[in-house]
């Protein structure tokens, strides 16, 4: 899996961090998404797909 995030679109809702804290983080000043792992292991794939689905700003893209 390869992930990309769009920091301009991100609205800092933080749902991705709750779902996959090893993959996503937030900037301390503005809460904007920080991608920790571009190619996370299999154990994170379901959580990343859910994060992609619930992201309100559609700022997460994953390629299987």
């Amino acid at each position, binding site marked *: 899996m390869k992930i990309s995030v769009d920091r301009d679109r991100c*609205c800092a809702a933080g749902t991705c961090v709750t779902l996959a804290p090893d993959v996503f983080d937030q900037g301390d000043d503005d809460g904007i998404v920080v991608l920790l792992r571009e190619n996370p292991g299999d154990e994170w794939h379901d959580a990343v797909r859910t994060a992609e689905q619930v992201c309100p700003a559609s700022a997460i893209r994953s390629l299987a």
Partner: protein
Amino acid sequence: MTSIADTPPAFPMTRAQGCPFDPPPAARALQDETPLARVRLADGSTPWLVTRYAEQRALLADPRISSDAGNPGYPSGVQRMRSGSPISFILMDDPEHARLRRMITGAFTIKRVAAMRPTVQRIVDDLIDTMLAGPKPVDLVDAFALPVPSLVICALLGVPYADHEFFQANSTVMIRRDAEPEERAAGHRALIGYLDNLMGEKLARPADDLLSGLAQRVTAGELTRSDAAQMGVLLLLAGHETTANMIALGTLALLEHPDQLALLRDKDDPALVASSVEELLRYLNITHNGRRRVALADIEIAGETIRAGEGVIMANDIGNRDVTQFADPDRLDLTRDARHHVAFGFGVHQCLGQPLARMELQVVYSTLYRRMPTLRLAADLADIPFKHDGSVYGVYELPVTW
């Protein structure tokens, strides 16, 4: 003579007697019939009501859909206030919306909110101690549901809690659906004056709180003092009214569903607590007036064309009961995966305080019923006063005993 079919139905609609947790039956009927329907607001305008989940999400994420309340087609349904918008950047579009929003989102990151959890737990425990030591029955709204989020948002913003009667009274007027425009404007002016005064104090003596952070932005020229006061009003209002209603109405819903309450009370399972919060958000829909928007361009959706300039209302309450998204949608099921609900909205305007709201509700729902295992209503359900007239739904009072 005009037939009923020629006249769009009035919106908001009325809930059925005896079904305080369910959306209005007329809205559900409309949802069964069509994904998009015209409705009539109090001012006579006839915007679109978007009834189904998929279309609601698609439109809320569509950049051709605007939150700009200054647009003449915006479906506010009430006479516009002269004093300007009461709720600041939530009624603006990007890029200005994003610029202002990002000034405060840093205070609501998952990490910051997690760091506040012990404080919230202490607040919740202290209020329960007080209730247990005091007389009963007690009004849970007054003794618990309102103080929890008010104490939390006051600490976060740097607002003295001693002023809570003042700001709660004015907040209530501002979100009462049937308040006269003049009454609502007066409530807004009072809060703006209060926050502006506080902003002056934070400019003079900055502390470690969110309002002081905004004061720094004012000093740096990134924000006007009046915009900073507006933001303060938004955060104070949104920070306590919404969560308070979720606590009281959520408790009532659980008391009316004892099998579900037992799950939450008898199992010490953080995952169940988290899913319970999502399910109660989905099921209760305290923001029951819909998400209001206006189209900036012609939009083809579900076989209809929304014309540029037309108002659009996403009825999130019935979206969260859409059977294509949630099996058996009218059943409260704390074990279901409801995370994709639209109770916080969707798109770039989605609630910025949601991590804080979730954490507060997780602490409350995992503590209150365990520490008060015999908690029960001290009145008939039929006598509970519901906020049918509020732009945020809930109960005015909840007499309980144990």
